[in-house]
């Protein structure tokens, strides 16, 4: 039960204006924190779901993990190795152990390569010798439920679901220990979504790979994750075992998100909690608890003091002054 990935106090910041212009205009802090002190861990073979609205920093975390966004602060330990701050080149072989499925199923496939070339691209990039690439292509395509017939197709000849399967095959090509799946169901029909999720679940059981799922679709999270974390403005407001969070949410934001999720059972009594207002700008974070501008239960202290992390149990944590009771 060792942690495969341990992220501690991760911070990713982006420059808003150039340093010269900042100095001229007298802007002291020309940065925004897209991810702001996030900590989590993933054990081997575990699935963690990352949930949040658009712009909450989910994809930024993914890109930081894979080395495409610079890490401003904090530590990322992967398989016992510190990887925060490594340059794109130093990542090197690490990219064999950590792979990514991208949001756009078709758009993430190079348009002029055949499916065969696409799924065997990792072998060529990492110079893996002694394997017959045609055989590998055929093995991978069969594994994700596409026939070897697909090998000679081009991305534009694939449907969204087929392209997604190619993406899965490519992500698993080198037997990684961790797969980051950014919106694995985006842009797919509901029936195809289910197929893709089942495929991911299957492969995970068979290959024992850990998966970090990034999504705003709560049904996806409920369906395939062991634990989940809820993001708001670049911070985790709550994280814990998926069942726990679904049935005993502690943070008002979690409660609101869950209540916005369509309930398949028409008889289930359900109260919809609406939150009003817009997501605040990262440029102008609210003081105190950052959710207080939209929180139904906000009180005076919420507007002044930022809440610390409360541990409800070993695994379930939240950041709120006035957590919901049962």
């Amino acid at each position, binding site marked *: 039960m060792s942690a495969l990935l341990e992220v501690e106090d991760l911070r990713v910041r982006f420059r808003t204006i150039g340093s010269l212009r900042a100095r001229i205009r007298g802007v002291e802090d020309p940065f925004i924190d897209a991810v702001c002190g996030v900590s989590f861990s993933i054990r081997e073979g575990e699935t963690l779901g990352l949930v949040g609205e658009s712009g909450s920093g989910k994809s930024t975390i993914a890109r930081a993990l894979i080395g495409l966004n610079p890490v401003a602060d904090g530590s990322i330990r992967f398989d016992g190795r510190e990887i925060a701050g490594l340059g794109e080149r130093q990542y*090197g072989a690490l990219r064999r152990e950590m792979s990514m499925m991208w949001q756009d199923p078709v758009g993430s496939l190079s348009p002029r390569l055949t499916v065969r070339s696409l799924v065997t691209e990792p072998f060529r990039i990492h110079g893996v010798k002694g394997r017959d690439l045609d055989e590998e292509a055929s093995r991978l395509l069969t594994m994700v439920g596409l026939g070897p017939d697909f090998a*000679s197709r081009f991305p534009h000849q694939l449907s969204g679901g087929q392209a997604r399967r190619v993406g899965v095959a490519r992500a698993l090509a080198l037997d990684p220990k961790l797969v980051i799946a950014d919106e694995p169901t985006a842009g797919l029909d509901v029936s195809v979504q289910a197929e893709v999720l089942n495929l991911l679940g299957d492969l995970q059981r068979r290959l024992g790979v850990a998966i970090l799922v990034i999504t705003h679709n709560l049904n996806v999270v409920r369906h395939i994750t062991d634990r989940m974390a809820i993001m708001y403005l670049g911070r985790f407001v709550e994280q814990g075992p998926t069942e726990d969070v679904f049935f005993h949410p502690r943070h008002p934001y979690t409660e609101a998100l869950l209540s916005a999720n369509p309930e398949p059972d028409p008889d289930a009594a359900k109260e919809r909690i609406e939150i009003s207002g817009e997501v605040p700008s990262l440029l102008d974070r609210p003081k105190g608890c950052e959710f207080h501008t939209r929180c139904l239960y906000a009180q005076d202290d919420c507007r002044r003091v930022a809440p610390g992390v409360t541990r409800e149990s070993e695994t379930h944590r939240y950041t709120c002054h006035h957590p919901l009771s049962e």
Partner: protein
Amino acid sequence: MAASEENVSIADHAKRTRREPGALRQYATQLAGNPLGIVGLVLVVLIIGCAILSPWIVPYDPTQIFVGPRLGGPSWAHWLGTDQLGRDTLSRVIAGSRIAMLVAVATLGTALTIGLLLGLIAGYGPQWLDNILLLLFDAVRSFPVIVFGLALVTLLGPSLQTVILVVAITSVPIYARIARTQTQSLRNAEYIQAERAMGAGTMRTLAIHILPNVIGPLLILVSMDVPLVIATEAGLSFLGMGVRPPTPSWGTILNDGYGVIRNSPWPVISGSVPIVIVTLGFTFLGEALRDIFDPKLRRDL
């Protein structure tokens, strides 16, 4: 056993459908539906055919003087008449097509290669490099071609190589700019990000994933630029800055004919008509190609 069968079927497929089946035929059909495109294609084939076959199809040696009368009009022996030295004009025009195409291929080839390279660097490299290169492109483009040509000729002396150099240098920025814009629009595409995340190096990304998607529009532009290059070559030769006599070029034919236009209009006419034909031919063909391959209309290019 099953695995080997699958391999056979993969190899089979590769052989049968390297591209979308019938894609070529589809393009041909589209071209056939465009009458101007057909005209362009015919003219281009005619000119290129002349250029390639010129040593074998010229009726007389194009530099041999007094193969006929001086300044003779068209006749069965000399279809386009003869010039002031009694050289056969038709032979000179055909031989001139070879010079014209040679200049076109050499300059556009050079300009395309260098332009593509600089464009990729500017589009994919760091911002400061992009700024420097853009400044350079704009500086080069701000020279009028002919004046720049005159300056270089003064420095290097008039020759075919100088013409090629002049036209190549002045065309590079156009190609480079287009390549740069295309590259920039691709560098943040998700598949390029995906390649980086898999650990593909810059060279690999550029060569395999960006270059093939950048080169299409450039090739269409090349086809449209052929007449421009040929006209520039003819212009410089006409001014005595290009090909040296007695080598036949359409520009030198025009220059020779222009001096004797009161005695015989045929050399001037014979020297200018091919320039018109080339211009129309490549422009029509280029426009037809652009319509067929326009990336906005056909995303599966």
